[in-house]
C-alpha cells in the first residue's frame, strides 16, 4: 500500500495511462474530459512521451492507428459526440487487430446534447459503433481508484488480445475527486513481433483491415470471432454487493449509477427489504456468469443514466426466468438515491 492522494477522475485516467507505459496520446478537447488531455499535455513531455492535440477527433483516432502499428501503447480520449466521430477509425482498428485504449467520458446525447453525465453510449460501445462484425472490450469504472486499475487492465487486455479496448466512464466520474493508491505498479509490456518497427533482419510485417478476396475476408472474420469467444470466456468481470443466497431483489447498475444504486440498496436493506446489487465491470464481455444462478431472486431492477440500454443484455441473460424492470433518466439527469429506493420498494408489489 502506497500513500493515498486525492485525484480527479479525468486526471487519474492520464496518470494511470502513463504508469501503464502509455507514451503516446492523440486527442481533441471536449467537455467533460478536457482535464485529461490537459494533464497529459503537462505530463507526457516529462516522461519522454508524445502529446498531440490533433485538428479533429478523426485525425486523432487515425494517429492512434499509426502509433499502434508501430507497436507502442497509445490512447485517445473524448466525450460522446467526439467518440461518434472516431467510430470509423475504431472499426479499422478492430479489423487490423490493433491494441489501443479509447476513453469515452460520456455526456448526454443524442447530437451535440449537453455536457452533463450520461451512460447513453452503452450501445455504441458494446454493440459496435462502427461498421462490421467486431467487438470492443469495454470497461466501466465506478470510483477514481478503479479508474487507475481499469486503465492499466485495459492496456494489458488490448495487448493480450490484439484488439482495441473502450474505457467507458461518464462526466460524473471524470469530475469526481477521490483518494487513490497508485501503488508500486510496473507495467510489463510484451514484445510485439507483428509491429511495423522497421523491417531489418526479419520478414515483412503487414497491418491492414482490407481483405479484397471474400474468402479471405470471411476467414479473417471467423478468426476475429474466435478471439472474441476467448475474451468472453476469460474476461468477464463484475462485483457482487450483498448478493447472497437470501437476496430477493437484485439491482443491476454500472459505473457512477452503481454508486448511487448501492446507497439505495443499503437504505432498502435497513428497511428490511432483501435487496442486492450486481455491478458489471466489463460491459463487453457482458458478465453473463454473474447471472448463472438467480438463487432466491424474485425480481431484477436495472437502473441506468439512459432510457434503457444495458437492460437489454440483462434480459437476454435472464431469458425470462424472472421479471426484469427498468428505471432510468436521461439528458444529463440521473436517478437519485431516493428515486432508486422508491423503485426498489415498488418491486415488492
Amino acid at each position, binding site marked *: 500500500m502506497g500513500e493515498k492522494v*486525492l485525484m480527479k477522475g479525468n486526471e487519474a485516467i492520464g496518470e494511470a495511462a502513463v504508469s501503464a507505459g502509455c507514451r503516446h496520446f492523440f486527442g481533441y478537447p471536449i467537455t467533460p474530459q478536457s482535464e485529461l488531455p490537459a494533464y497529459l499535455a503537462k505530463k507526457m513531455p516529462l516522461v519522454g512521451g508524445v502529446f498531440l492535440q490533433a485538428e479533429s477527433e478523426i485525425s486523432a483516432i487515425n494517429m492512434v492507428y499509426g502509433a499502434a502499428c508501430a507497436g507502442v501503447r497509445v490512447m485517445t480520449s473524448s466525450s460522446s459526440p467526439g467518440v461518434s466521430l472516431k467510430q470509423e477509425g475504431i472499426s479499422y482498428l478492430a479489423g487490423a487487430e490493433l491494441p489501443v485504449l479509447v476513453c469515452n467520458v460520456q455526456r448526454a446525447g443524442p447530437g451535440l446534447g449537453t*455536457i452533463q453525465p450520461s451512460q447513453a453510449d452503452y450501445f455504441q460501445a458494446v454493440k459496435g459503433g462502427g461498421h462490421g462484425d467486431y467487438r470492443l472490450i469495454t470497461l466501466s469504472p465506478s470510483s477514481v481508484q478503479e479508474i487507475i486499475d481499469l486503465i492499466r487492465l485495459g492496456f494489458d487486455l488490448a495487448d493480450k488480445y490484439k484488439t482495441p479496448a473502450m474505457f467507458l466512464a461518464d462526466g*460524473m466520474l471524470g469530475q*469526481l*475527486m477521490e*483518494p487513490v493508491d497508485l501503488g508500486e505498479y510496473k507495467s510489463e509490456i510484451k514484445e510485439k513481433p507483428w509491429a511495423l518497427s522497421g523491417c531489418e533482419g526479419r520478414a515483412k510485417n503487414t497491418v491492414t483491415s482490407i481483405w479484397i478476396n471474400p474468402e479471405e475476408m470471411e476467414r479473417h472474420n471467423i478468426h476475429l470471432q474466435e478471439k472474441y469467444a476467448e475474451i468472453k470466456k476469460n474476461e468477464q468481470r463484475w462485483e457482487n454487493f450483498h448478493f447472497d443466497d437470501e437476496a430477493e431483489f437484485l439491482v443491476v447498475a454500472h459505473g*457512477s449509477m452503481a454508486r448511487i444504486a*448501492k446507497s*439505495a440498496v443499503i437504505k432498502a436493506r435497513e428497511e428490511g427489504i432483501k435487496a442486492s446489487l450486481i455491478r458489471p465491470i466489463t460491459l463487453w464481455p457482458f458478465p453473463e456468469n454473474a447471472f448463472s444462478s438467480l438463487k432466491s431472486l424474485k425480481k431484477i431492477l436495472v437502473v441506468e443514466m439512459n432510457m434503457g440500454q444495458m437492460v437489454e443484455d440483462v434480459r437476454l441473460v435472464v431469458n425470462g426466468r424472472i421479471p426484469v424492470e427498468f428505471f432510468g433518466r436521461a439528458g444529463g439527469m440521473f436517478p437519485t438515491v431516493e428515486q432508486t429506493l422508491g423503485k426498489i420498494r415498488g418491486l415488492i408489489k
Partner: protein
Amino acid sequence: MHEELIIAGFGGQGVLLIGQMIAYAGLAENKHVLWMPAYGPETRGGFANCTVMVSDKELYSPVTTSPSSVIVMNLPSLDKFERSVEEGGLIVVNKSLVNREVFRGDIDKVVVPATEIATELGNVKAANMVALGAYIERRKTVKFETLINLLPKIFKGKEKLIPLNEKALIQGAEFVKNL
C-alpha cells in the same frame, strides 16, 4: 461520523477550493472522502457549487439531495439549497451577501459576515476561508489544525497568501466561538 456538505456561491468566491481543503483534511485524518463539483458550460462567473463527503464509512453515492450541512456564500445559493438541508443539519450563511433571514427553524444556523471580515483583513477573496473556519468550528468535520497544516500545500507557489488565509480561518472560527 458521516458528513454530506454542499458549498455554493458565485464562481470566483473560492467555494470549490474550500471544498477540496475539507476533502484533503479528511484524507489526512484517514477518513473516507470525496469531492465533486457541479459543472456547467461557463468558463468564468456564474454559479459554482461542490459536494464534499467525509465519513468513517465507505462512500457510495457521490451526489446528495439532502445534505447534512450547506455553506452558502450568496443569496441565490441560500434560495437554492436552504430547503434541501437535512432536518437537524447545519447552514452557514455569508451574511454580507445575503439580505434575508434563514426561514428554516429545524436546522442549526451560523450567520457570519464573511465578506466583511475578509475585507477588514485586507482581501475580500479570503471570505471563503472565514466561512470555512466558521463551519469547521461549529461542525468539527475535521480538526482545525489539520486545515491550518494544509495551507502550505494549498498555496504552494503563492506562499505570501498563507498568513492572510490563516488569519481568515482563525477569524471565522473565533466569530463562532463568540456567538
